[in-house]
């Protein structure tokens, strides 16, 4: 690497080492005094299922537990998750999901956790009764034409369907309340319910449209609602693979979110999703302004200190430790319902960015040093650099014989001449072909015209 010759040895060593020794200085001291509620959930250690599940409520808790059970290898964790799902379902009214979970358990947890047919039957019967009651009430309200009651009636229907897992019907019911909303508060309530159901259904197009609808209300929204809407928008962008937009939305979420949106997302998730998407898509200035200097977001990052550390490492060019944190987090991230499809892509993007940022300030780079910094072999590094150069993300050339990467800046003058000559040729070709075609068309037109005459 090119560096000053007279620099003190410790500085040189630090540059060469590139943060490899930095791994030991894990700042876990700050977290040891935090209360149990804020203990890092998504960390390098194996996931603590109880703590994880405690972050969420409602249907999403059950779905997350089921997802965990489906995707983790450890049968102990699997059974733990299924057991918790069973307990949670018993408190609710969703018999369909209940049966599914029982099937997955398959009797492995003993007789207490098997099909409880009586409970199912009782719940179903109660459901039918309630449904009839709701219907008759709704009809009564409709004949009376009182807007507020009709709206409440449809809302109750929506809640009922949602509790029983009939998501499509729930969505329809919530949307029907739209015609009977009178104040902005009603509209926001309708939008939030619709968003909740859409997220559960996985239809994120609806999420985006309802978020924009809610944000367009004339009255000012209260801060928790704003935060909720931004989270929902961020999730929608994440699903659509628009990582930059997702990052921006998550970073705008204020600390007022707290635990108010536990039916959808936990503050730890906001920090993780926001941090990873930002790393994968922002450039250095944006990263500094919006993430590192962002006071609001700092509160979220405190909840997931590993993500905070890895962002700081990336910014200060300690790539080895950054990548190590990422590697540790991976297994737990793969168990998360929203981000597990995107982990690979995000990781690849972060790694590419690290490589590009590493080579950016130098005229020549020793590939052996670089391979050490990124914990990979020289051959592997060469392949990665080759694909980055072909994609035109690094302007450099590889000297494969001596294993050095040389920066290469295009000669503007030559490039301009080449482009000029090429444009001239293309113009020549196009115009000649065009004149020829015009002549043919004229000929054909004359032929047709003369035939008519």
């Amino acid at each position: 690497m090119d560096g000053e010759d007279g620099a003190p040895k410790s500085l040189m060593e630090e540059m060469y080492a590139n943060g490899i020794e930095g791994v030991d200085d894990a700042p876990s001291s700050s977290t040891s005094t935090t209360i149990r509620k804020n203990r890092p959930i998504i960390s390098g250690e194996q996931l603590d299922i109880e703590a994880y599940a405690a972050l969420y409520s409602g249907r999403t808790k059950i779905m997350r537990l089921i997802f965990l059970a489906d995707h983790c290898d450890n049968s102990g964790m699997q059974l733990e998750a299924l057991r918790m799902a069973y307990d949670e379902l018993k408190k609710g009214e969703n018999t369909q999901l209940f049966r599914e979970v029982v099937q997955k358990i398959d009797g492995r947890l003993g007789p207490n956790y098997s099909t409880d047919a009586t409970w199912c039957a009782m719940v179903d019967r109660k459901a039918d009764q309630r449904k009839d009651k709701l219907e008759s009430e709704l009809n009564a309200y409709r004949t009376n034409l009182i807007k507020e009651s009709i709206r409440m009636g449809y809302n109750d229907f929506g809640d009922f369907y949602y509790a029983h897992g009939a998501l499509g019907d729930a969505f329809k019911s919530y949307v029907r309340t739209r015609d009977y909303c009178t104040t902005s508060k009603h509209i926001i309530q309708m939008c939030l319910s619709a968003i909740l159901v859409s997220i559960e259904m996985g239809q994120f197009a609806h999420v985006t449209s309802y978020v924009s609808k809610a944000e367009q209300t004339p009255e000012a929204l209260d801060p928790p609602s704003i935060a909720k809407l931004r989270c929902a928008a961020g999730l929608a962008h994440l699903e659509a693979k628009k990582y930059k937009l997702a990052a921006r939305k998550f970073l705008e979420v204020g600390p007022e979110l707290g635990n108010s949106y536990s039916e959808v997302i936990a503050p730890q998730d906001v920090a993780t999703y926001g941090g990873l998407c930002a790393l994968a898509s922002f450039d250095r200035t944006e990263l500094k302004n919006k993430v590192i200097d962002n006071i609001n977001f700092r509160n979220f990052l405190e909840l997931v200190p590993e993500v905070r550390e890895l962002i700081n490492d990336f910014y200060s060019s300690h790539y080895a430790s950054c990548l190590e944190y990422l590697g540790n987090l991976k297994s737990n991230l793969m168990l998360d319902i929203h981000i597990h499809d995107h982990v690979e892509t995000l990781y690849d993007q972060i790694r590419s960015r690290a490589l590009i940022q590493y080579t950016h300030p130098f005229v020549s780079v020793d590939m052996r040093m670089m391979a050490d910094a990124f914990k990979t072999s020289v051959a592997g590094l060469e392949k990665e650099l080759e694909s980055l150069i072909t994609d035109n993300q690094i302007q450099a050339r590889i000297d494969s014989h001596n294993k050095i990467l040389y920066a290469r800046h295009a000669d503007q003058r030559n490039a301009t001449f080449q482009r000029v000559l090429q444009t001239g040729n293309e113009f020549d070709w196009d115009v000649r072909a065009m004149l020829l075609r015009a002549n043919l068309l004229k000929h054909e037109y004359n032929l047709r015209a003369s035939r008519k005459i």
Partner: protein
Amino acid sequence: MNLVEGLLTQIQGLSSTASDVLSLQNVLNQADESLHAESTRLLPFLDQLDPSKHSLGYLYFLEACTAGPVTTESASSFVLVIARFISSCVAEQIRLAPDKFISVCKRFKDQVLLLEEPLRGVAPMLTAVRKLQSSTEHLTTLHPEFLLLCLLAKCYKTGLSILEEDIFEVDQPRDLYLYCYYGGMICIGQKCFRKALELLHNVVTAPMSTINAIAVEAYKKYILVSLIHHGQLSTSLPKYASGVAQRNLKSLCLSYIELANSYNNGKIADLETYVQANMEKFGSDNNLGLVKQVVSSIYKRNIQRLTQTYLTLSLQDIANTVQLNSPKEAEMHVLQMIQDGEIYATINQKDGMVRFLEDPELYKTCEMIEHIDLSIQRLMTLSKKLTVMDELISCDPLYLGKAGRERQRFDFDDFDSVPQRFNI
């Protein structure tokens, strides 16, 4: 016979001035049928006429003589006669009866092919083309005949000389298609792939109301040449290609499109298996040579991509990346490319390394400045031509009538220039 002799005297008498020639033409037109009736006995009378002075009359007689079917004995005698006529006839008189001249030359071509000596026909046909065309931008029906003879006689260079000229005026669309198709084949033979691509592109995108076989064959060759020259094929035809072509061409050339797809995937083994599987199909279209060139071009493409990424690379690595069998083969390929001027590199045999260099062209020499200057002037002339044509069309009553009729369909701004009286 009296009729014929009468005609002969008239020809001899009326061939001196332009007005005489016109009245002669009327006479000949009236006598045309009777001439055709006597076709077999007209040959001896030709000796009484001098082709350089009585070109028009000679032409009519000759056309009547050769109107019948071609036989081998008559072929050899006629070939000499026609060749002499073409070289000595007067261009202005010929142009008064272009159809007759064209049919005479076509007969000539048939006879030459029957005798299996296409080379004999090349030079006379070239002269014929030059005499028939009113300007170098004019495409006559004889152009494709000439190119066909060049192809069959394998003298591509003469063909190339005609292809150098730009064509802007066309008599018959079919002539253009054939001309561009044959021209494309000649350029492929001479390895000028850029010009071949241009000509084939003209056929494929020419306005046509129904799909024709020439366009289909041209499209097949276009795909192959595009792969060799550019390394890729644009998947859709440009917007100005006729609707018929856009809809039908792809479905008629499916195996070639498949070939292009497997080329783009970059796996040489797949490409070669595909070629092997479809060998007879390509062979029946006479495209086997081109297909082989496509396969060898994929190696070149891969090596060129390496020059963008590496400064030095070992021959072993080149062999691995480009899927060649050994470093020796890699060395051969790189050497060939350096000699052809496709890449700039030096091979260090001691280390088995190749060092890629930048393009040494600095754009500072006098030749380069001259080249740029000439290009600019050529483009300015072309631009002027385009403006002139645009002005001509905007004054054309047919165009204005159509534009006026369709005024309602377009924005007001587009056709503001059309006067109101053209509203129908």
